[in-house]
């Protein structure tokens, strides 16, 4: 009998995910939006702050905004900061949240109780509220602050989900077997527990990304952008709100971008969730 090698796990999961229509659609659109946000600034007809005509005029594809800047160009510039901040915030939230959740599940008993009670305190805040409360005392938010705030609001929710998943794994015999062999606790978490959580965690990450984008755009919409002059999809909505009836594109264009982006990431996340459920 010849030795057969099964393909490495990560690519087979990706392949499984690709078979979900939602994932392929969501993933491709997400990639498109990301590409747009990254590369479009180099292709914009006007500069980010260049005046292209009178305010709220109909010149250009989408008209001009409240300062007379070209909406299309601002649209092309406006995705970068949202993208970077959302991604980093998601990453932060996932790492911290998974750590908390898995350690709580694995430790069990008293530790689990304490960690989860503290977690509940953070959970008592709707995500936007936490950000707003902290922003009250600050003069002007920096990008780092926004990343930390959004990430910190994700962490307790991710912790709760990952604790749930980890609880189902930690009691399984193969984890007990590893402990009976005397494996180091850190090794048990990394080698036995976490690898069996990749599916649900990826799906959660997709979901968190969706919420990150929403939150960052919301903060922009409320006027808490870090750089008031720079193009920012969320901020653009607020800037051009007054002219919604006459020059809707100033608002609707960034709104549609956000909508498309979040729909895509959410579909992608759901596709990942479906793929992970069909595993094992």
């Amino acid at each position, binding site marked *: 009998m010849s030795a057969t090698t099964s393909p490495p796990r990560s690519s087979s999961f990706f392949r499984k995910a690709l078979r979900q229509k939602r994932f392929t659609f969501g993933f491709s659109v997400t990639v498109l939006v990301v590409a747009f946000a990254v590369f479009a600034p180099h292709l914009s007809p006007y500069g980010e702050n260049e005046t292209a005509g009178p305010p709220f005029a109909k010149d250009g594809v989408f008209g001009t905004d409240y300062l007379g800047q070209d909406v299309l160009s601002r649209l092309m510039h406006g995705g970068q900061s949202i993208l970077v901040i959302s991604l980093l915030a998601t990453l932060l939230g996932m790492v911290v949240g998974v750590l908390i959740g898995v350690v709580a599940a694995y430790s069990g008993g008293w530790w689990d109780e304490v960690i989860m009670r503290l977690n509940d305190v953070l959970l008592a805040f709707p995500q936007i509220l*936490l950000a707003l409360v902290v922003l009250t005392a600050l*003069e002007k938010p920096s990008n780092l602050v926004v990343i930390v705030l959004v990430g910190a609001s994700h962490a307790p929710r991710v912790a709760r989900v990952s604790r749930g998943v980890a609880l189902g794994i930690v009691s399984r015999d193969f984890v007990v077997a590893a402990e009976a062999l005397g494996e180091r606790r850190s090794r048990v978490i990394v080698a036995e527990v976490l690898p069996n959580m990749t599916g649900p965690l990826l799906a959660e990450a997709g979901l968190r990304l969706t919420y990150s984008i929403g939150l960052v755009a919301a903060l922009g919409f409320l006027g808490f952008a870090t750089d008031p002059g720079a193009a920012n999809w969320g901020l653009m909505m607020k800037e051009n709100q007054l002219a919604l009836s006459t020059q809707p594109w100033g608002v609707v264009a960034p709104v549609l971008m956000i909508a498309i982006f979040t729909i895509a990431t959410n579909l992608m996340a759901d596709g990942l969730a479906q793929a992970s459920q069909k595993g094992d």
Partner: protein
Amino acid sequence: MTQVATLPDPLEEVAPPRGRSGGAAWGLWLLRRLGLAVFTLWLVSILVFLATAALGDPVRAILGRDYDSNVAKREQLQGLLNSDHSVLWRYFHWLGGLLTGDPGTSLANGQPVWGQVSSNVLNTLALVLLSALVMIPVAFGIAMISSHFRRRRPDTVIQTILLALAGVPEFVTGILLVALFSTSVFHIFPAVTISSATGHPWDAPKGMVLPVATLVVAVSPYVSRIVRATLLEVLDSDYVELARLKGIPEPVVMRKHALLNAIVPGIQVIALQLAWLAGGVVLVETLFSYPGVGFQLVDAVRSHDVPMVQLLSMIIAGVYVVVNLVADLLSILLTPRARTAISS
């Protein structure tokens, strides 16, 4: 390959609860739960206070460049905030005020915060309750229709639409609805809540339609998906299968056996979403200039009005904790297994 069953432990024979001792056990459990909620709220208050008072200087934020020049204003604000006292003192002073009904004075207009907030609280409650009342039948209805067509075309289409809607931020759907129904396509509903003579937005109902619709669209998809998933899980379960094998007609199976067991997760999700609404109103009210707590909060944050922000966040967080508690309670009451577990 079907797995041969492993040996479970036989279930212990539990004597049903005798009246008095069961009641006492219930009371204890309730007390514990309440205590936990209060404890959580207390920790929340610490968090709120520290976040607003210890992370930066709100006086500096308000005055900006005038911080050094406008001494009189600065001292007035610092007086209102008791800045010369330690953080610990300030916290307990504030907490005491919160519990006795005097949660501070607004930095923006020098008036006590409580009076300014009370009417807005009512408005927000109206908005949230109305949205919930509309959302529940809509979500359950869609879920039941979808599960009726389970895994066939209509079901997949409905689910994909719900999924798409679920990820969109609520203010984005709000703007789209405004653009659609108010400003650009149709012109049916007002884009901004017109303040009525009595100060209650429900006296001008047309102005409430779009905010309510926005919240419903934001919250229903998730609830509907969960309810559908639970319905399907129950419909596939062994005891429902046995009911069919016993020859019980399908509608009765659906109603009596399936729905009953699907309601509990449904309630938990509804509660979660209601709690979420507590935060979701912030953006929606701002968008529609709806005179509620969320709108007021954003305004306060913008003007760095710390006492206002503190009170409003406590209110919102408080609602969140209470709604979760009620949801917990309901789900236990409706699950016989958990009910008897507590009594014994």
